[in-house]
């Protein structure tokens, strides 16, 4: 039987990620997880630095919104539970290699062109390189197609920044949920 909207709203929670730290379950937003320096399960520290720097170019504020924790959490979930948009963009799971290879290619390009890692580039250099990969593979690019990698990561950043109740309402749009996202992402 259909449910009444009022009944749903009474039982809603907020959009949090669940983390197990020292045997204790913590339910945090991606942004809170970043603030509390919650350990990553899939991504390495350097990959996180590249990802957050790239995210800040794609959509400023996405790093603080927890882009890296959001992606890491999804990559750590079972394929059936992963909620990344890449799942319907013609890439078969698991998706970890797509992200790690793309980040490596981005970083290698930065080192090849400028001699430093991507997160060490100036703001203008990061923007110029991002604009470049949005259009075509740079010389020597060894990852998923650069424009596609740009497209996917850009949409991940939009997801974590504008895809939540807080993000939608930041645009002046009422969320109007029948059922708000429950307490745990990816399950």
């Amino acid at each position, binding site marked *: *039987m*259909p*449910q*009444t*909207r009022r009944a*749903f709203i009474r039982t809603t929670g907020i*959009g949090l990620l669940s983390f197990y730290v020292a045997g204790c379950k913590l339910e945090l937003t991606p942004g809170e997880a970043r603030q509390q320096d919650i350990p990553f399960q899939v991504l390495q520290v350097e990959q996180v630095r590249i990802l957050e720097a790239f995210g800040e*170019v*794609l*959509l*400023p*504020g996405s790093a603080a919104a927890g882009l890296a924790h959001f992606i890491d959490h999804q990559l750590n979930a079972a*394929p*059936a*539970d992963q*909620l*990344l*948009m890449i*799942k*319907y*963009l*013609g890439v*078969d799971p698991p998706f970890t290699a797509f992200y790690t290879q793309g980040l490596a290619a981005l970083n290698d390009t930065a080192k090849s062109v400028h001699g430093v890692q991507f997160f060490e580039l100036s703001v203008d250099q990061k*923007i110029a390189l*991002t*604009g470049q990969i*949005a259009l075509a593979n740079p010389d020597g690019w060894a990852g998923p197609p650069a424009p596609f990698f*740009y*497209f996917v990561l*850009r*949409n991940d950043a*939009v*997801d974590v920044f*504008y*895809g939540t109740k807080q*993000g*939608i309402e930041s*645009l*002046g*749009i*009422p*969320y*109007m*949920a*029948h*059922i*708000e*996202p*429950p307490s745990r*992402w990816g399950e």
Partner: protein
Amino acid sequence: MTLPTEKVDVVIVGSGAAGSAMAAKLAAGGKQVVILEAGPERGNRDLISSGIWARRLKWNGESVVEDGENPVGHVFNAGYGIGGSAMHHFAVWPRMHEEDFEMRSLYDRGLDWPFSYADLQAHYDQVQRESGIAGDAEKEIWRPPAEPYPMPPVPRFAQGSVIARGFDKLGMHTAPLPLAVTTREYNGREACIWDGWCGAGCPIGALANPLIIDLPIAFAHGAVLQANATVSRILSNVTGEFVTGVEFNNEAGETRQLMADLVVLAAFTVQNPRLMLASANDKHPSGLANSSGTLGKFIMSHSAALVYGLFDENTSCHLGAVGGQLVNQDGYGKNTHADAGAFGSYQWMIAQAVKPNDLLGMATTRPDLFGHDLHAFMQDAAHGFAGMTAVIEDLPLAENAVTLSSTLDRFGTPLARVTHTTHAQSKLLWQAVLEEGQAVFKAAGAREVWTGPQAAMHIMGGTIMGQDPAHSVCNTYGQAHDIPNLVIAGAGLFPTSAGVNPTFTIHALAARSSEHLLNHWNSIVQ
């Protein structure tokens, strides 16, 4: 629910729009029905209002290999779990037009459907009453003969009025979009609140999906549904004249068989021919019921023509249904854009409710923007964005087909490979319609107009029906020509794609087929 161990009357593979509709009708007709669903169990409480969470409703089963110049976008267009793709469909339910049923006779294209619009009209009307459709029959000047709509039309919000202004200035018509969404209380279902979460599933029952419409009827008449049951093979008797049941793998990975007098394949357009091809045997060496050689062929997918604009006025673009507020079918005639070398029908779905993120979200319409420019665009678009989508008819081509991959799934069944390249004249139609859409937006006063890429919308064909067993897989009721107790349900039956959304027609076909099966049961089953 406990799965029977003895032979049942009917086993239905798939619980989407077609499978659920067949289950409801056959169970109500007194048949013992079992539905096997490859995906997980799902209820209304799982339909979370979130573009991110809604991705759970998309295909998550065995991989589908896609190639050709214009892939069909299987994961995005297919569904997974109880209700199938109908759980994330937008409930745009227009009827096909009379000429759509005579594409060979009138235009020398594809095949004629094995019946006329007049033969299907009563079933359209029946489904319309049962499921509830909101519309305005008088303003829908293109509508073929039909009963009036049982519910008043969907409301027009600012976005609809803004875009309608452009159609008006160009001398074109608009009418409320026919939606299977409640505009008032209907058969115990609440009225829609126009929140734009259709694609995430509608838990309040305003949108006609299988959880609301057909499965409750099926269950009330004793039907049993087994989730996480992946059918890998259709079983047939030694002579190959009849099917006897299906082989499936349950959640524990155990292989089981369920015998039935009638097997209904309703596993969506790609998986149906995959299963039939993978069930080849010595009596059917090229695939089950494939004596015509057409099994898997004539896969079609509507191209979506996407037009967007920014207006100075507040469009309230978050309000309404994701399918849209208005429809225009002025270009439905097959030769509207013949001067551009195009052929086929199309309709505009106008003023679609939109969210910031996800593949159909505002941000994705401008993939060129990033950084502070993207933030600025989002702030602007939240108040002045407008969009509309045209459904472009895809002409059938034999080389667009489902075949078997050499890669096996975890149960040993070959994966499906789907090849699709848009017919050249359909591609020209898509381009011409994009031009038309931009002209409409400019006439409406948009300060900025842009378009999206060619995108695949709906998947049809592959198990086409026709009068001639030499050129089609199924007869007029979806029975395989070669095996009368093997029935196909869904958009795979369509010999041509028309220029409208397929779900209403899928329901009408299921009603027609079920009626025939019940009336001729003893002559159909072994």
